[in-house]
């Protein structure tokens, strides 16, 4: 359902919000243009489209690999959607991500650390995916607040992901692995070649002090939990304190969710047909078709 939300929003909410301006511009430009607003792709950031207006159509109609430039954005979009569906499928413990409204190349996320040194930490982060995905480098993970951690840059908040994915290999590497890695670093501390040398040294020399710094860092992060999201984006993850009027109902729905699919199925109009007995490949082999002899 994440995907669906994403999809719906990307394709519908998006229209409502940005569509109006667009629409005005477009109508001035070409009033007779038919409406495709509904199926609009989410906008792609400026740096995402490696294609420019062809000087001569014949020469640039096809890229070197034989694919049409016109479809490039579609391929990128679907690659990222595929990655996202894969993340959903993995059901990574304590990790939630949501692609941004403005770009499919930017995902907002949050990690809940449930035990270990960083227990009770709730760290918001952003994933930046290179625009030549999947052929570029590995996606970057940047924490909103630089967590005190050997592998997290104390200034930018960026996690050193590249050490785990020295070379990003299409089909082998997936974004869910990056997310998984982002989680693992909080359970299994690595101090080799740190981005935060202080944290690395403390961990190796004075774990007690390290621990107390971590506790402070966790406290700091959590104290900013309810802040406005860093990014001004409708899909940025924002926290608010418990409001029964809003959250009780949502919680209720989440807990009853599992029962719904069956209920839903009954009312389905589109239903396929099958008289094949499971384990058989013969048509009309089901048991409720007893032989007629």
């Amino acid at each position, binding site marked *: 359902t994440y*995907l*669906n939300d994403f999809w*719906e929003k990307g394709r*519908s909410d998006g*229209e409502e919000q940005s*569509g109006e301006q*667009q629409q005005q*511009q477009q109508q001035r430009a*070409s009033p007779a*243009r*038919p*409406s*495709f*607003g*509904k*199926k609009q*792709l989410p*906008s*792609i950031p400026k740096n995402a489209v490696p*294609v*420019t207006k*062809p000087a001569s*159509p*014949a020469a640039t*109609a*096809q890229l070197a690999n*034989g*694919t*049409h430039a*016109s*479809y490039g954005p*579609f*391929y990128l979009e*679907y*690659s990222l959607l*595929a*990655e996202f569906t*894969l993340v*959903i*499928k993995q059901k990574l413990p304590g990790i939630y991500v949501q692609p941004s409204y403005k770009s499919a190349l930017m995902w907002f996320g949050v990690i809940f650390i449930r035990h270990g040194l960083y227990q009770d930490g709730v760290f918001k982060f952003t994933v930046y995916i290179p625009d030549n995905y999947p052929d570029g480098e590995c996606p970057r993970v940047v924490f909103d607040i630089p967590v005190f951690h050997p592998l997290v840059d104390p200034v930018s908040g960026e996690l050193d992901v590249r050490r785990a994915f020295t070379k990003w290999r*299409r089909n082998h590497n*997936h974004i869910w692995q990056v997310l998984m890695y982002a989680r693992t670093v909080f359970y299994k501390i690595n101090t080799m070649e740190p981005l935060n040398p202080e944290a690395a040294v403390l961990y190796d020399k004075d774990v007690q002090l390290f621990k107390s710094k971590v506790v402070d860092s966790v406290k700091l992060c959590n104290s900013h939990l309810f802040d406005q999201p860093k990014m001004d984006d409708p899909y940025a993850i924002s926290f608010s304190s418990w409001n029964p009027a809003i959250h009780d109902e949502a919680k209720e729905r989440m807990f009853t969710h599992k029962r719904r699919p069956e209920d*839903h199925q009954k009312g389905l109009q*589109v239903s*396929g*047909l099958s008289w*094949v007995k*499971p*384990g*058989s*490949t*013969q*048509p*009309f082999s089901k048991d*409720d*078709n*007893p*032989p*007629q*002899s």
Partner: protein
Amino acid sequence: MMMASMVANGNRDGRPGEALVLKGLDPETCMIVFKNHWAQVVKILEKHDPLRSNTSSNMAALGVIGLSSGGPMRFGGPIPGDEASAVQNYVEHILFLLMEEDAGQAGAMGPILEFVVMENVMERLFLWSLRRQFTDDMKLEQLKMYEMIVGQARQPLLHHKPVLRPLMMLLSSCSGTAGPEVEAELVSLLNQLCCVLAKDQSVLELFFHTSEDQGAANFLIFSLLIPFIHREGLVGQQARDALLLIMSLSAENQRVAQHIAENTYFCPVLATGLSGLYSSLPTKLEVPGEEWHCLHREDWLQMPTLVQFLNSLEFCNAVIQVAHPNIRDQLVSYIYNGFLVPVLAPALHKLTLEEVMTTTAYLDLFVRSVSEPVLLQTFLSFILLHRHENVHILDTLVSRINTPFQLGTVSLALFQTLIGLYCEDVMLQLILRYLIPCNHMMLSQRRVVKERDFYSVSAAKILALTPSCCSPEHSPPPLRQLDSILWSKGTDNSANTGTMETEETFLEEDGSGYSCVIGSEIYLDVNYLHYLYNARLGISSCTRACQVWSAPYDGEDPPPEEYQPSALEEAGARGRQAQTVNPKRSHPHPRPRPPCPPQTTDPAPTNQLELEWDDSYDAGPVVSPEAAAAESSRPPQLPAAEPPKHIQEMRRTAIMLVKGSYIEESDFQDDVMVYDLVAKKDARDTVDCRRPSRETLPESEESEIDSNLNLEEDHFKESSLQEKDEVPLSNGLSLPLHPTNMEVTKGSKEVKAHVADHNSNLQSPSAEVGDDLMGQYEELIRTLGSDETGTGGSSHVKTVDKEFRNPVVTPMEEDEVDFSSFSVDTPELEKPHSSLFGTKLRSGSTRSHSVPFTGPFVSVLLSRLENMLDNSLHVNLLLTGILAQLAAYPQPLLQSFLLNTNMVFQPSVRSLYQVLASLKNQIEQQASTKKDFPELITSAQHCLLARESSLKGQDTNSGDSRECSPPEAGRMMKSSPPPQPKTISLARTEVFATVLFTEFLKELAAIAQEHSILSHVPMEE
């Protein structure tokens, strides 16, 4: 007042005003008036009663008097008109009083009703009307009288035998020979009675009991309705409605269900009626144009006979929906054995292209018209499993896709319908079973089956096949701005009302869309978004529908190892037993024959046939071909194993009904005819059993028979060769003829001899095809009788059934022989393509089992696709539509085969991508040799755009798009021809094909892309 006027209708002297006056009177006064009137009536009645002394009439006495003679019944001279009309007036008042009377306390009878019961008023009135001339007018009067009191009375009347009994007698006397007015009134009354039954089941008991008293058939009102099942117009509709009420009653009432299933011929009449109606359909359709390919609503509404057939089919559908399982199963079984196998199967194998095409279009329409899964299953198992002359119907239909001419197109449309059902069994037989073993791919590729295409590599490869002359950058500016050419959108979305669509329509109405965010810098193919959207809808609904399937077909389940060709043989053998079961759930009584014709004849390569069949005589366990022929071409079946005692009883009661009560001879003739037939058949079956069966005949005797048959065959061959093209048979009654079949074996001779024999029997009805359905129906049943005496084929049934268990065949072999035999059988249909197609198939028949083969359907589709540049536009629309339909299926086996361009297949396997690539090359070649190609492309695009928008307009007007072809309505062409383009002729198929090819690539790519994100997410919506 309505009822008063109804009485007035029947009685010209009626004075409704006077009746109204009675309304306000108190019960005592009413009673007094009633008794007075009755006394007057009795006076006149007794004056004309030949047995004056009797105060209460005795029904038995009437039989003695000889009322059944059929002539006018008068005693003591004619009854004067004034007396008759006086009685009529009194009766009118009496009935009105009865009707207006309220029930007594605690449901007791009111005093008037009590009097009516005690004095046997109704019975005596009925006798009175018999004593006068019992004309249609008289019947009408009586029927209206009952209709009025049954419908209007304030207390239940039917619970009382003195009311019910004369009603039943009246009903039985009105069936059969009555004129149309009486029939209409009769059915109307029966309908009313059924409504009463549906509301108050306690009456039901009485209907049974009364009948028993009578010694007549139980549940008379039901039996009386049966002859009207297939009637057209209001009468038929009322009868069917009434029967449906009883059917839903049967679902809860075991006794009713049992009675209908065991003691009536409801199911056989219904099913054989379909055959009868089918036989009056046109054998050749007046096709509006070359691009016509299926019967739309507006087409068949013009054909009364087809409307009538569809009404009856719809009725079967409704019965199956509401009736008790016993009735349902019996009906389904009769439809299979009484309509599909004996009528539709031969009709699908007629001689001329037009006839076969027509039958195919009918079949397609029928499948689309049926909604109840059990009935659909019956049709599907017929298509998938039934063998006609040893060839599966399915294989025949598949091979016809490859015929040029309209037959190919109509066959394509049928498959579009079938694929649109999301039926696992269909997809299994058509494609999946060939893919399950995974032999079509390199061994190393098996793990790739389930892999998803993360980066739209396949989509990119498919789109990269876009011919350079059609690349989006080349589109002229006006087309870029327009909605461009889009095939499968808009009209087919009506069923899926998601939020997205609502918004879309809103936006479109609003006219406030915008195209590319990316800006004017590059051209982004806008209509590709539509393809993505439609692909999403298509895959989602398909995925949802396939949730009921038994397996994911992902290369692991079903496990390929278990379904390797060698293993398949056993599986197939097991399966073939299962195949004999359909349609499902026979009712034990009356017991239908096994529905499928024998499937045991070894379909080895042709040159082996003779040997195989000769062996079979010695060995025994293999079924004899003539039995097969008898099976497959037998006309409507009546129950085979009817207990004679039961039949005799049925007959007796029927005869009693005819002879013993007041009805004339011809009443109940339909039922009696059925009874007679069954009885005859019973007798014959006994004879058959005593006669030695063919298998056990000594060789000499056998050859003698053969030579006889040969004579017949030769004669037949001659004549049929002469008039090959004008076989004067009526639909459904003609037979498959393959005069050019050169397989001279004993078996095939006999098959044809049988066919000839059969044919001669069946030609008579065709000559007499009249308006009267009943006549045809009778004829049908009659020919059934004679045919069976001729062939004696029924004795084989049991043997055949037994022998199913030891089939000698493997499924692979079946396919091969099916095709080679087809191409041998029907060269005249195949000629333009037969060399290519036939060779391929024949080479297939010699290949070993392990040679990978993705099945005839895929093979034929791809063959036709490869000829895309020569195909007409509408053929290409259908072809690409079907392939897109297939591509939307979420099963990884299918998906990987059709869409995964990375997959490495066995060298002998042709993939969709290969065909597309070859098409691209053909197009590029054309484009390079023809200077004006780009301009032609542009005009073709404009032409198609215009066509598309005109089709859209039609769709919104007719609102019928759903009915035609579910997922692809937008692609479909309607009967009316599209506006002809001014600049380019549709004959430039290569130009249109090029445009279509480019759009098809987008459609496929969009489907591939949506699969990459949809098929791998568990459905939770």
